[in-house]
């Protein structure tokens, strides 16, 4: 096997990870070039190639796999540069996209404008048709009216069409018929059908997902095909995969068909890295992934080795943004990172964020005009960063500016600048801790039973404090922490999912219909496997029901018993009982109560295909020759007191497997700085990762 290249194009940086046959991982970084993504990708790959000692064309020619993660779709949605899209809806229900699902934050705030719908109301077309809750046609589709509507769509220059009719999940005939008419009258105009993309109940979720998907089709088709052309022109001959929000990757053709799955696909790869590293370190199947960037802190969990999914992912703020609706890897984001600004309100209470200094001007310590105290400034004041070696020497740190930015706050608090900085850092850590608690404790997961895998450029700053607060004993800061998503792609498998809606009550279970649906879903995902380029490895199928107690409305993803069997049906009552028992256990874990007397209703069924791809082998780094690593230098650092502690500084390049470092200490990696707090310690593992010991 040759090289495997993964590329994560973020808003600012493009991260590349290259793995070699021996399991060596090399990180390359470059600025993202939105005008032509390939340029930034080339620079980042070239940066990695240089470290490996190859030319860019050589590396590309010797690579077999390339996995591409993109924020292209996300950016298009955020900047409102998606295609002009017509939305076809059932007559009588034109405002589904306007009304969303209701809800807002801050009930007493009347200063905000109500959000514009994802598709303007004047681009909405009501179609004469109706399917009822039993799946029967209550009003036949008026094909003549559809033809007239499509003529208008053509005349007004729409570039894509989204179709979402009520109850198409039960009976897609009308959406299918409209699809045929679009193919006939608007050949070449891309369209999305809700019943194919996301066959789940609740019309807003389907409508929003379908509208977003259709609106992305023209540009993502262009984008991915352009990229393929550029890569081929540069000499790449291997297979190209694109990472998806479903927690794996898939072919370009598959993503052109469902571009919505590229949204959030970068962060979705972080948990893949998380579980891989936890296993590599022998730390088990329950993982909390924390990714700290400049402006956001993203957190997700892996439970019993499985990624967790959520249909409640919003593009933009909850309630007022646009709901993705698809079952995406559950990564929650809060506005807290290195750039978060600390401030006091007029009642004297301290806050960190949600305002951020962003990338421009950035924290005061960047020396680019930032004047407000940020979390990064706090770390700079505390002495955690080497002014001359900040961000791997790419930037010089202006500690004086950081101190100046902190002075006003320190005076208001009546504390020294160093103690103020410590409080900023720990308050930010507390917000992050709370975000972790939201996805663990609130979901019935005890963080003490989990391993934290930390990533992101700012992770090393306070991950050990967060872990301490959560009571986590096992923390890993992987060698690739600064490019966690790109690293995750290295270990991603091909995943594809088919969902079918079939309302099934456990006390009047229709075994035949459920099994027939599972049969169809299984056949569909297996057909998808056949279209995957290159060699297809071992195949796994996973089976889930989206289930709830009768009369509840929020479902829990309930695994079948023995969900990972190659093929799964409900053979009889015993299978059903075991499935229902899984639901009771899940409900009790998450909500502290169960109701064994209640029937369980499943609203949709899901088959997930996993095609194993070759992952990089686990590298063993050279063992340390001596137990104590060389100290590169000493620096005064502050850990909450007014007086500094003379703290040993270690260079990553001086460390080997088996080296143990007792806090206080600072370890400088090229792209991140790890602070080992007093009383804590770090150990370099056999695979070269940092194992952090809190207690």
């Amino acid at each position, binding site marked *: 096997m040759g090289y495997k290249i993964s590329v994560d194009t973020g808003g600012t940086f493009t991260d590349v990870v290259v793995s070699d046959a021996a399991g060596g991982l090399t990180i390359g970084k470059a600025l993202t070039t939105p005008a032509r993504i390939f340029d930034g990708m080339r620079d980042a790959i070239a940066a990695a190639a240089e470290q490996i000692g190859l030319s860019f064309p050589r590396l590309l020619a010797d690579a077999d796999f390339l996995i591409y993660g993109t924020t292209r779709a996300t950016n298009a949605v955020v900047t409102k540069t998606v295609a002009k899209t017509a939305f076809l809806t059932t007559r009588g229900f034109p405002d589904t996209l306007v009304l969303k699902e209701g809800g807002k934050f801050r009930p007493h705030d009347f200063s905000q404008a109500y959000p514009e719908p994802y598709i303007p109301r004047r681009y909405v077309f009501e179609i004469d048709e109706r399917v009822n*809750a039993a799946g029967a046609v209550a009003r036949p589709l008026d094909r003549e009216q559809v033809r007239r509507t499509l003529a208008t769509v053509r005349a007004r220059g729409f570039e894509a069409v989204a179709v979402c009719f009520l109850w198409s999940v039960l009976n897609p005939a009308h959406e299918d018929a409209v699809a045929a008419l679009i193919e006939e009258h608007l050949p070449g105009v891309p369209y999305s059908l809700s019943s194919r993309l996301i066959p789940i109940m609740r019309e807003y979720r389907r409508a929003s997902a379908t509208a977003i998907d259709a609106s992305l089709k023209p540009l993502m088709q262009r984008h991915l095909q352009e990229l393929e052309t550029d890569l081929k022109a540069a000499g790449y001959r291997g297979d190209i995969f694109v990472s998806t929000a479903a927690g794996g990757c898939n072919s370009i053709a598959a993503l052109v068909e469902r571009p919505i799955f590229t949204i959030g696909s970068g962060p979705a790869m972080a948990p893949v890295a998380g579980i891989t590293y936890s296993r590599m370190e022998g730390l088990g199947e329950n993982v909390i992934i924390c990714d700290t960037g400049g402006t956001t802190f993203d957190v997700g969990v892996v439970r019993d080795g499985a990624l967790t999914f959520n249909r409640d992912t919003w593009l933009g703020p909850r309630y007022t943004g646009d709901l993705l609706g698809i079952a995406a890897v559950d990564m929650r984001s809060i506005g807290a990172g290195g750039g978060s600004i600390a401030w006091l309100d007029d*009642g004297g209470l301290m806050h960190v964020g949600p305002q951020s200094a962003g990338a421009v001007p950035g924290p005061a310590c960047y020396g680019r005009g930032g004047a407000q105290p940020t979390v990064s400034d706090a770390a700079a004041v505390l002495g955690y960063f080497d002014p001359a070696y900040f961000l791997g020497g790419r930037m010089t740190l202006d500690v004086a500016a950081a101190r100046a930015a902190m002075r006003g706050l320190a005076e208001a608090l009546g504390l020294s600048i160093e103690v103020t900085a410590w409080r900023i850092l720990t308050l930010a850590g507390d917000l992050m801790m709370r975000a972790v608690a939201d996805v663990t404790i609130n979901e019935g997961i005890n963080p003490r039973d989990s391993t934290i895998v930390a990533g992101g450029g700012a992770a090393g700053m306070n991950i050990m404090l967060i872990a301490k607060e959560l009571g986590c004993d096992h923390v890993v800061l992987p060698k690739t922490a600064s490019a966690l998503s790109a690293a995750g792609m290295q270990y991603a498998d091909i995943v594809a999912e088919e969902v079918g809606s079939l309302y099934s009550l456990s006390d009047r279970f229709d075994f035949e219909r459920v099994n027939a649906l599972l049969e169809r879903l299984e056949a569909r995902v297996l057909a998808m496997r056949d279209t995957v380029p290159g060699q297809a490895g071992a195949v796994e199928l996973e089976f889930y029901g989206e289930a709830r107690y009768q009369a509840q409305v929020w479902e829990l993803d309930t695994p079948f018993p023995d969900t990972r069997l190659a093929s799964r049906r409900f053979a009889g009552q015993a299978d059903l009982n075991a499935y229902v028992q899984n639901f009771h256990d899940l409900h009790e874990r998450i909500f502290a109560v169960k109701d064994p007397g209640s029937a369980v209703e499943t609203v949709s069924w899901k088959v997930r295909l996993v095609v194993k791809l070759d992952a990089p082998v686990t590298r063993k780094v050279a063992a340390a020759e001596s137990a104590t690593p060389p100290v590169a230098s000493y620096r005064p650092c502050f850990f909450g007191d007014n007086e500094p502690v003379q703290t040993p500084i270690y260079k990553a390049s001086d460390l080997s497997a088996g080296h143990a470092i007792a806090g206080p200490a600072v370890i400088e990696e090229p792209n991140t700085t790890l602070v080992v707090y007093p009383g804590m310690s770090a150990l370099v593992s056999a695979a070269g990762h940092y194992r952090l010991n809190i207690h």
Partner: protein
Amino acid sequence: MASPTQASDFDPYMTAILANRVDGIIREMTNTLLRAARSGVINSARDFSCSICTGDNRLLASAEGLPIHIFGSHMQARTMTDNAGAGLREGDCYLHNDPYTGNSHAGDHTFLVPVFVDGEHLFTTVAKAHQADIGNSLPTTYMAGARDQYEEGALIFPAVKIQSGYEMVDDVVRMCRSRIRVPDQWYGDFLAGIGSARIGERRLKELCAKYGTATIKSFIEHWMHYAEQRMAAAIQALPAATLTNTGNHDPFGDLLPDGIPLKASLTIDPADGYIDVDLRDNVDNVPCGFNQSAACASASVMAGIFNSIRADVPRNSGSFSRIRIHIRQGSVCGGPVFPASCSLATTNVSDRMVNLVQAAFAQIGDGWGLAEGGIGMGAGCAVVSGRDPRLDGTPFVNQLFLTNSGGPASAVADGWVTYGLPVAAGLMYRDSVEIDELKHPIDVQYVRLITGTGGAGRFRGAPSMETGYVARCPRMEVIWPCDGTHFPPQGACGGHAGAQADHRLVRADGSVEALPNIVVLALDEGDRVEGWQTGGGGYGNPFERDPKRVLHDVLEGWETTERAREVYGVALTGAVDDETLAIDAAATAHLRRAAA
């Protein structure tokens, strides 16, 4: 000046950390209740609130709670401690829905769990959820016509023990199961409510274990003091003024032929940082379900004030102590005399009271206060019940949330489209049409916004919404208490009123009957009810609305070309369909000059 000063040992950092923790605990309680509940009114519409009270019965925090629910849980906690006395024990849980001892209205079941730390009662966790049914004489939690609480007919729980030593008191469960419609649905909600309060208990104990009881106790005082200080500062930013505003709830048949006249007087004292609100000059208790409970009268006034000041003052007993509300025993506004019915206390008069108070602030001048928000729960918010033929005649009862009333305009923004009601202020969720058709034997015909129904203004009220649905069962009872059919929400500072509500019954044979505002109906299979709720009031003179906003309104179907010209003085050329619609600047200037 009697401005409160910060306690000398106030710790801006530790207080922030602990406030963050308490907020997280309420979030977790909220999440549990939303996701585990059975009835649509809780799990789809989010008609519930969680809060935490102190051991000495002050409200500590009410993050994310509905405006009408924020006030009163401390009164319910006090009822619990008064009743239980020294018998209050760890492991207890109490059910409370008595409007005479602190609850909003009987339709809200409140779960109270006293939290003990080292034997000391330090907190009470509170989960309050509006029920689908409470065993009233009619299948609704809104008994508009009830002469008194007896005729309402609900089981009343003035802090009744439902768990002891963490075990269920099955007698109460059996009582409820024998009285409340669709008992399995009720029991699921009951479990969810207890689960929510218990999760809060567990987390508060962990918090005390981690930080020590002494730290937590001083945090409580600091947080109360902080909130009070923020409120005082907000009041100090207001001008000294006495504001009096009046309004009127709709008539109700022969019982209230003139409706209910309402009045509130606010005296703002910025020097000392207090607002006094006088509700005493209101009519006596009415012989039907519209009386406000003390909790709802207070909560609606608080909501109107919070709407008119800075939005981020914590809502607890600290900030509330700066608002002094004067209520007359015997008055419809918060002084019910037993057995007067408070069945509709959370909505009708309370919605009017929120409006009255926030619009009173607009009297200070342009830039202050708000217009009146859309009111009334009509067909789209009816409580429907019957037997579902698709499930072998299984009974169903639930409140729908298909439509909203439009939000009020402020001095800086148009009305919020999914506002709902003044007492909910956009916090509640909307039903999915598909979920509603799945859960109830109805066919929904349409759900849509109506062009040109938001109150015009420099900023526009949000429009009315309409719906119609057909019964698909032999007999479906449909009950709603819609305000705003006679007296629509008013604009402020020259803004216009929002549209009035209106409803009809269309029989299966096609005959049409106009419906009154307050409706108790039995539909036959194939009958349809339809109609719309009110639009929000506008703020400021419509002729001052930015023509670009008017253009956008017409493009997007919020307004018509005609209303743009006549109401807003904006002349447009071209057409929406071919995307040529544009402002005719000269004609607009002419129109607006002519009006000036």
